[in-house]
């Protein structure tokens, strides 16, 4: 495992800081430098980070009530609901991209079903990416928060009530602080997932500046190993940082 994984990662980190092979002139700077120097690449990076951030925030906010209900409610069919949420998690990015296109592509289903022809074609580019990200972030956020919330001790809430707190106060002063780590963890996980999602970007954003696709291009198209390494490194590092932050407050 060490050989097969850590070594390549280390090598990757190093090559990001070195100039690429067989490069001349302008192109001979280290990949990591060029990543930030080139405006197109910068935009790709910015798009990736910003979009992932936004959708992660949105999904956590949207999914919190559902997560609470799943974790603490006692209604029949919870297991089924959980199963439904688990399914999209196991779909690879390409499929999710396809679903986005099927719904919102030039010939997608939603515009005709909802009689909103302006939606057609919105799949490609920012909107489609956002929708696709949402599609696999919603289950991830919901289930991550559910697990963390399920661990909330009912006894704590009851104790708060006996100490004289109204339901609203209990929610605000006891339940909410207990939720926060769960939300942070969910945010971290969803952010990392969408930042690195490749298959989706391939299908939906082939012509839109987004980092994973640029990474693919650098690697296979222009054979710019240093730039590719730089991009991969940035993705990996940002994801790792966010995950580590999320985990520390989530425990």
């Amino acid at each position: 495992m060490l050989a097969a994984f850590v070594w390549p990662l280390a090598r990757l980190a190093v090559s990001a800081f070195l100039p690429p092979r067989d490069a001349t002139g302008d192109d001979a700077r280290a990949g990591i430098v060029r990543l930030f120097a080139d405006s197109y690449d910068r935009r790709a990076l910015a798009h990736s980070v910003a979009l992932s951030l936004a959708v992660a925030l949105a999904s956590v906010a949207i999914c919190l009530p559902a997560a609470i209900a799943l974790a603490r409610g006692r209604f029949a069919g919870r297991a089924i609901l959980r199963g439904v949420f688990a399914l999209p998690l196991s779909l690879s990015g390409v499929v999710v991209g396809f679903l986005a296109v099927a719904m919102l592509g030039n010939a997608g289903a939603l515009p005709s079903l909802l009689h909103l022809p302006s939606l057609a074609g919105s799949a490609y580019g920012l909107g489609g990416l956002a929708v696709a990200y949402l599609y696999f972030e919603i289950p991830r956020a919901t289930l991550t928060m559910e697990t963390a919330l399920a661990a909330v001790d009912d006894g704590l809430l009851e104790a708060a009530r006996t100490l004289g707190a109204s339901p609203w106060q209990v929610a605000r002063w006891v339940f909410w602080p207990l939720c926060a780590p769960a939300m942070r963890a969910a945010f971290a996980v969803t952010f990392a997932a969408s930042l690195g999602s490749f298959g989706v970007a391939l299908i939906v954003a082939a012509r839109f500046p987004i980092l994973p696709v640029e990474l693919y291009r650098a690697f296979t198209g222009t054979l710019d190993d240093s730039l590719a390494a730089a991009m991969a490194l940035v993705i990996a590092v940002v994801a790792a940082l966010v995950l580590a932050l999320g985990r520390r407050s989530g425990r």
Partner: protein
Amino acid sequence: MARRRRPLIIAGGISALVLALVLLLPLALVVAAAFAPSESLGISSEQWIAGAGAGRAFRYVLQTYGTHLITSAQVALAAGAIALLLGAPAGTALAMAERRRGARALETLLTLPLGVPGIAAAIALLSAFPGRGGALGLLVVGHVLYTLPYATRTVGETARASRLGPLLDAARTLGAGRVQRVRFVLWPALRRALGSAALVALAVSWGEFNVTFLLATPSRGTFPTALYLSYTTNSFPVAAAATTIMLAGLVPLVLLALALGHRPEQGA
């Protein structure tokens, strides 16, 4: 003592239901599109094959991407088997050796791939080991890198939760030899986790795209690569049919794994 149904939970439950439907809708549409003329669903395709019925779409998929299916099956079985054979003992051993220094570190190391986004890991691997494109062995290795951590973690967590170490000690004092301990304590305690880990490994391999895509050649790839080709080159019904096949493989695996106690928070 009855708990008052808080309105938040009811609202949450409804939103969960709504979200679930939102998640299911595209899937249902796509599967339906594979079987029915898609015009009836409001989808029109620019490359509509006149008179295409469900049978033709599926047959086309199987014809064109049949080898991909077979490769997927081969890789999945291999990666799954390796993951289980290596990961289960590793996870168990690590769970039982918890107090020894280095056990925690080793466990983090073994599950490292799960924390690195797929594409970054794929690039790292391929830069370091320039692949003989499409070689089956290399594909398996790439998949194992993801199936192994899942298996290790699933089995390890169950071993830890059921306190396997102390239980085995108790079995020893009751006179059980090594084989008996495996047969009467280890196996019953880990049965479900092993099944779940195997299913998850298969599901992960079946759906793996990042590493596979970069390794694949036009002639040799797994089914997800076939899906990519289908999405970018085929008509909608064909793509829908291919997706349906993908789901037909994935859904049973995931549902069975869930039934055996798998917890899906970390993907797959």
